[in-house]
């Protein structure tokens, strides 16, 4: 009676979504046929968008049973917080997958407001709201059939690392198939960077962008993309579009500028950046063609929404982080 030959243990993989749009899950499917390679080396144990699992299944796993958890989405209610903590316990390696998990992402812009003002808008005065009784979601509701519970909505949107320890970051809204495969290959081969790293490249989007840039650029005026016809070969920032490329980590292959859209900053800050909004503000406005105050004010004033432009994906991890509730947030 010889020992039973054990098949090499497959990588135990989980993927979960919190406050996200589902784009990150699509990003995994975007690797197309390579998904079969992933399935060949990994058991996908949890993937709510693609397979049917119940939360109680997760409870049955041993702590650390999952090798890698790809967690996408920000954390903004207590269900998401619970799952983040639970999956942290069950996983050896936690990866903040996508911009929302890494920096708060688009949902992170809700840090301009708080629960009360968001509820007032959503259940109150938006054009499509019909709510004469002023009903708002309650965490507990008693109905004849029993008690109903829905998650508690927080005042703040958190990045994943603000609520649990995270080993790696894979930014992007959504991460490109190349970014996904780079991460998967790094995980499968075990060839991982130091804990806390972003799996990707340390260069800016401008570095990858093929448009021609002049040595001493000048911006005559800021425009929105729909207002001008752009020169397909010239730097978009020099043409007056608020391109975040110079302040944003590359890895996307400069996808947006290559199709005439300015970079929006979804891969987040460059390594060693103090604050991505400060970086972008500095880079974009320093080169405005103005030498006196009135002119600078008029030309820079055309940049309508600096906060929303510069922190589109990163507000919860920025220096100031939110508009305080006592100051209109």
């Amino acid at each position, binding site marked *: 009676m010889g020992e039973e030959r054990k098949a090499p243990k497959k990588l135990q993989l989980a993927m979960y979504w919190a406050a996200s749009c589902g784009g990150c899950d699509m990003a995994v499917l975007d690797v197309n046929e390579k998904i079969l390679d992933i399935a060949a080396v990994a058991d996908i144990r949890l993937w709510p968008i693609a397979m049917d699992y119940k939360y109680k299944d997760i409870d049955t796993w041993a702590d650390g049973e999952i090798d890698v958890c790809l967690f996408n989405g920000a954390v903004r209610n207590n269900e998401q917080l619970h799952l983040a903590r639970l999956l942290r316990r069950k996983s050896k390696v936690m990866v903040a997958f996508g911009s929302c998990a890494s920096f708060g992402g688009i949902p992170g812009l809700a840090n301009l407001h708080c629960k009360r003002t968001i509820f007032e808008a959503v259940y109150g005065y938006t054009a499509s709201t019909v709510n004469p009784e002023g009903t708002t979601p309650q965490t507990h509701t008693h109905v004849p059939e029993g008690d109903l519970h829905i998650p508690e909505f927080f005042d703040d949107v*958190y990045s994943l690392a603000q609520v649990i320890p995270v080993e790696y970051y894979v930014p992007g809204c959504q991460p490109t198939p190349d970014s996904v495969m780079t991460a998967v290959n790094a995980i499968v081969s075990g060839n991982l960077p130091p804990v806390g790293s972003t799996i990707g490249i340390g260069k800016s989007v401008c570095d990858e962008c093929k448009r021609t840039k002049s040595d001493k650029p000048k911006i005559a005026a800021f425009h929105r993309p729909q207002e001008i016809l752009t020169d397909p070969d010239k730097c978009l920032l020099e043409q007056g579009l608020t391109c975040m490329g110079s302040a944003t980590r590359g890895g996307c292959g400069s996808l947006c500028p290559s199709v005439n859209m300015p970079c929006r900053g979804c891969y987040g800050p460059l390594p060693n950046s*103090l604050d991505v909004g400060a970086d972008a503000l500095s880079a974009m406005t320093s080169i405005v063609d103005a030498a006196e105050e009135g002119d600078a004010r008029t030309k820079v004033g055309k940049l309508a929404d600096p906060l929303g432009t510069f922190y589109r994906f990163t507000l919860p991890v920025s220096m100031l982080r939110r508009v305080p509730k006592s100051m209109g947030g």
Partner: protein
Amino acid sequence: MSHEFEPRIVVLCCNWCTYAGADLAGTSRMKYAHNVRLVRVMCSGRVDPAFVLRAFQDGADGVLIAGCHPGDCHYINGNLKTLRRYPALETMVAQFGIEPDRMRLEWISAAEGDVFVRVVNEMTEQVRALGPLDWKRRAAVVDRNESHTAG
């Protein structure tokens, strides 16, 4: 225990003009509000907007950026970069809910010790009237972190 609020104002001033101007105010025995903390930088163009945000985040009630008059920059056009950045920074800081009077840009030459005194005194009174910014407390959140401090 209650005591009167004394504003803390960070002054980011350039080496060549404003710092010398502040020096002149000192050697001329002019008095000015003791609420300012001067940080000397080589040029107002060296002031990364992140310095201003960090000052507010770390407890400053006001931030003054001061440099050479446009045209007088020791590095030819460093201060023009500040001049261009400032309107956007002003808008952005206001979007965060911070009152406009808490941030100011001034051109103060090495000969203008009196201007330095006036600006510092004016700003101190404006910020005193606004009260503490206290960003850490105001932007504080319920800590949902069990085992680890972010950032």
